[in-house]
Every structure is written in structure tokens, then in C-alpha cells.
């Protein structure tokens, strides 16, 4: 049993490096990755690189247009927008990662259980997933966030809830196909418990498709979270979340165009990055194209 294990792992590592090489050769993968890397860098280094304190109020410099001193201009409280946008990256990425981890974890587990155990358990779980998917994502997230109370953490939970079925369906599909393979029968024959099989055989096989889905969902999450904040249900002031900034910036749109423009631009570019990378990754991992 350990031998199969080691062989599986060795093969997986080889496949991993092969994937890396293919990624390097794919222009959209590289472009997407660069965007993601830059945004991540900005998020991580915000404390060091941001020119100003994002919450420092300076009433003397309210609503200044972009200049050398303030590349993105200032907001209605004199705060530097560029710095706020940089910290906003931190927030958006944090939201994205948390949602993916929560939704991915719950969804993958549900999907694996559902696919592996089959029959009534499968039916029940998938019906529930269907119901959740019957809502337009933003509408459901809105309802949940409203019920839980407007806060960033609640928004994260709300969006995660909405995303769970996507992971569940994916992993269930993989579980169904893996279930019939020989090594599962072998494992069961040697007395392994269902939970162990699920954790050690089924889930590792889903890794690549889960990664692709996670990348795409990260992008979608950032959009939905920003939309929630825009409506007033996510991040609350003075948190420099991109959607929240646009919500305020809207009031000043006509005469202070920079306020709403820059945060939104960053949302757009960041999500494009995740989407391009995710698409390229999916194409590369597609078994038909790989050979």
C-alpha cells in the first residue's frame, strides 16, 4: 500500500513540474500570473510601499486631483487614494483566499462524501446544492449578508456559502469517476475505512481541477464582495475596500472622477488576471491537450 502511495506521489510531482513548464510557455498564463503576482506584492508590501497612511485624515487636502504628491488624488477626507487602493488589495485578496478556503474545504468534503457514498446521501446533498445554485449568486449573498448584519466577515461567509456548491459538484464528479478505479477496490479490500479513502485517494486526485476552479472563483469572489460593499453590506467605512470606496466615490463622480475610477480599475485588472490565469491553467491541464 505504501508503495502505491509513493508511486502516486512521485508521478504527481513529475506532472507538477511538467505543468509548470507548459505554463511558462503560455502567454496568457504568464500575463495572468504577472498580474496576480503584482497585486499580491502590492497587498503584502502595502505597509512599506504605500506613500501615506490610508486612514490619515487631512482635511486641508480634500478631493485633490491626481498629482505628483498624490498619484491617484485624495478623497473627501483628504486621504491618499493610492495608499487606500494598495491596502484595498490586501483586503480583496484576503476575502478571496478566505472564501476559497472555506468554500473549497466544505465543498470538496461534501462533494467527496456525496460522490463516494452515493445513493441517498448523494441525492440529498446534491439536492441541497441545487437549491443553493438556483439563486443568482449576488442575490443570495445579498440576502445572507443582510440577515447576518453588514460587516466584512459576514460578507465573506455569505459569499463562501454561495460558492460551496460549485466546489461540491466538481469534487463529486471526480469522486464518481475515481470511485470505480482499481486502486480504490484494492484499498477497500485491505480494510481501509471510507474516511481514509476519501482523504487519501479521492481528494488528491481532484487537486488540479480544484486549483483551476479556485482561481476562477477567486476572481468571481472579488467581484461579488466588491458589489456587496458597494451596496453597503460588506466592508464598512473607513475600511479601504475597493467596492466601498467606489460607493462613496460615486457621490463625487461628476467632478472628482479619480475617486471612483482607480479602485474600480484595480478590481477589473485583478479579476482579469485571475480569469486569464485560470483559463490558461484549465487549458493546460486538459488531458486531451496535454498529450
Amino acid at each position, binding site marked *: 500500500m505504501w508503495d502505491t502511495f509513493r508511486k502516486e506521489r512521485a508521478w504527481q510531482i513529475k506532472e507538477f513540474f511538467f505543468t509548470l513548464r507548459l505554463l511558462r510557455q503560455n502567454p496568457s498564463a504568464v500575463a495572468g500570473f504577472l498580474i496576480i503576482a503584482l497585486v499580491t506584492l502590492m497587498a503584502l508590501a502595502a505597509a512599506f510601499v504605500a506613500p501615506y497612511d490610508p486612514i490619515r485624515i487631512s482635511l486641508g487636502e480634500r478631493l485633490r486631483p491626481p498629482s505628483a504628491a498624490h498619484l491617484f488624488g485624495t478623497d473627501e477626507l483628504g486621504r491618499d487614494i493610492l495608499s487606500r487602493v494598495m491596502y484595498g488589495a490586501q483586503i480583496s485578496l484576503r476575502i478571496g483566499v478566505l472564501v476559497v478556503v472555506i468554500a473549497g474545504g466544505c465543498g470538496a468534503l461534501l462533494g467527496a462524501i456525496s460522490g463516494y457514498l452515493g445513493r441517498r446521501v448523494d441525492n440529498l446533498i446534491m439536492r441541497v446544492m*441545487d437549491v443553493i445554485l*438556483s*439563486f443568482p449568486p449576488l*442575490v*443570495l449573498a445579498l440576502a445572507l449578508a443582510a*440577515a447576518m448584519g453588514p460587516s466584512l466577515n459576514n460578507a465573506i461567509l455569505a459569499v463562501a456559502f454561495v460558492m460551496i456548491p460549485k466546489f461540491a459538484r466538481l469534487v463529486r464528479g471526480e469522486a464518481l469517476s475515481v470511485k470505480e478505479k482499481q486502486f480504490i477496490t484494492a484499498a477497500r479490500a485491505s480494510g481501509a475505512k471510507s474516511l481514509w479513502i476519501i482523504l487519501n485517494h479521492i481528494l488528491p486526485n481532484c487537486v488540479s481541477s480544484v486549483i483551476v476552479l479556485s482561481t476562477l472563483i477567486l476572481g468571481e469572489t472579488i467581484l461579488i464582495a466588491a458589489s456587496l460593499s458597494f451596496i*453597503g453590506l460588506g466592508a464598512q467605512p473607513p475600511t479601504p475596500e475597493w467596492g466601498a470606496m467606489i460607493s462613496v466615490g*460615486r457621490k463625487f463622480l461628476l467632478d472628482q472622477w479619480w475617486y471612483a*475610477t482607480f479602485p474600480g480599475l484595480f478590481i477589473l485588472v485583478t479579476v482579469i488576471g485571475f480569469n486569464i490565469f485560470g483559463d490558461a491553467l484549465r487549458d493546460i491541464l486538459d488531458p486531451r491537450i496535454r498529450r
Partner: protein
Amino acid sequence: MRLLNYVLTRLLYAIPVLLGVTLLVFLISHAIPGDPARMMAGQKASREAVENIRRSLGLDRPLPEQFLGYLVGVAKGDLGTSIRNQRPVLDDLRDFFPATLELTLVSMVFCVATGLPLGILSAIRRNRPTDHIARVFSVVGVSMPVFWLGLMLLLLFYRTLGWLPGSGRLDMALNPPAYVTGIYLIDALVEGDWTTFINAAGHILLPAFCLSYVYLAIITRIARSSMISALGQEFITTARANGLAEAAVILKHALKNALIPTVTITGLSIGELLGGAILTETIFDWPGMGKYVVDSVGFLDFPAIMGFTLVVALAYVLVNLAVDVLYAFLDPQIRY
């Protein structure tokens, strides 16, 4: 006959989903908040008012009993009372529905009429400039924050160029046309009121474009990929080998096959339209259900929010049901 069976089966399947949706909304509105009675009564209501609500809505009963009551209420059309307006939520929604319908319909028609040909063209001219442009547009489209796009459109067309109006369905000075459908474009035509029609069209232009952007990208993308897929099939070679002109090969043989996944995804993505409508209506001050729910959020008008959610979700399920049926018309293999 087989088709009828299929439709009936689908309808039957839809019922548990509809029930499930109602259950989920019920749970969200009754099981999650700290005190559902206070949520229904409003933040500003007195303790007495809250207790009244609690008793009249039966919020002190066990949950299953509450759900039954809720279900019956929904069937009768009772979606609660709006805190803001002190009216039944259903009436509010009914008032704001036509505006949303108009916006959504115009967007859908525009998107299908543009996206389908664009996708097909992109597939035929694969890897040539048209294709590359279409693909870039697609990626940008699905990554676009709708509310930001709306603001940028306003900046450009309203503020800078002054070509188009910035809000509402009609200029303040004009009166809405006589009510036939509630859709100004249609009603104005029915009345023969050309001025109003043009004005309404001008007002709907930006919001419709904004709302369409994401949806258009989705449709173009799926139309392109399903067309490419269809064109790669063996029966296309058969058609060519039989002497059919290329146009017939593409428009008859490939297209019908390509439409199958396209229709499915188009139907599923209507959820994007509905979600996007919320944001678009807010940006453009479009008096529809979307703006209604966002305003309700501002007031923490809980019943309104939940009522909206239920109605939209139920509508979405029915739309998907319709798409399923349409799918069966296109793909004979499904019916058997």
C-alpha cells in the same frame, strides 16, 4: 409524446427545487438573524411593536410550524410588509417590476442578437484578428465590475460628451405613456408617441449597455466554443462531402448543434443579468426592483429584501425550467 413526457418530468423535478428555494429563504429570514421579529419590525420600532410582530407572525412558534405558515402565506401572495413604505412587499415589487423587465429584456435581446453572430464569426475566423479581439473582449467582460462600468459610462457619455442622460427612464419634463405593459418603449409605440419613445430609448441606452456587457461576453464565449466544437465533428465532413455550400454547412448543420450548449449557458447566465440589474439600476437611478432592494438595504428593510430574494429566485428557477424545455426541442437525444 416523448417530448411531453420530458416536459412533465422536468416540471415535477422543479417542484422540490421551488420548495427548497422557499425553505432556504425562510431559513435565512427566520433562523439566521439574532431576533427575526426585530428584523421584521425595523430597527426603530418600539419594543411593543416588536412583540406585536412576533405574535402576529407567529415567530414564537416552533420552526416547522412557522415554515408551513410561511409557505401558505407565499402561496397567497403575502411576502411581508415593507418597513419603509408600510405596504405589502408584493405591491412594491409589482410597481417596480416593469422597469426591471424592460431593462432586462432589452439587454437580453441585444446580447443574443449580438453575441450569437459574434461568437459564430469568431469560430469561423478562428485565430484571425476578429477572433483575438472577441476573446479579449470576452475576458474583460466576465471580469468587469458592473457598477464601475456604469460609472465610467456615465463619466464618458453623460459628463464628458453630454450625449446621453444620466438617470431615470424619462426626462423629468415628460409624462410616462399610458399604462399597457409598463414597458415605456412598447407603451409609447402603442400610443404613437414618438417623442416619448425616443426619449425613453435614449434613457435606456446606457443602463442596457452596462447590464449587457457581462452577459454579452458570456454568450459570445460559449457561442464561439460550441461552434468550434460542432465544426470539428465528423458529420460536418459528411455534409461537405455531399456537396453542400459552406453557408449551409455552417448555418444548418453546425449551428443547431452549437446552439445546444449555448442555449443552456445563456439560460443559466440569466442569473448574472438579474444580479447585474441590482447594480445597474442603482447606478442609473433606474426605478426597478434592483434599485428597490438596494434602497431597502440602506433602510435595513428586511421584509423587502427577503421578499425580493424569494421572487427573484423563484423566477430564476422557472426560467431555467423553460431553458430545459427549449433544450429538448434542440437536442433529440435528450428526450429519450
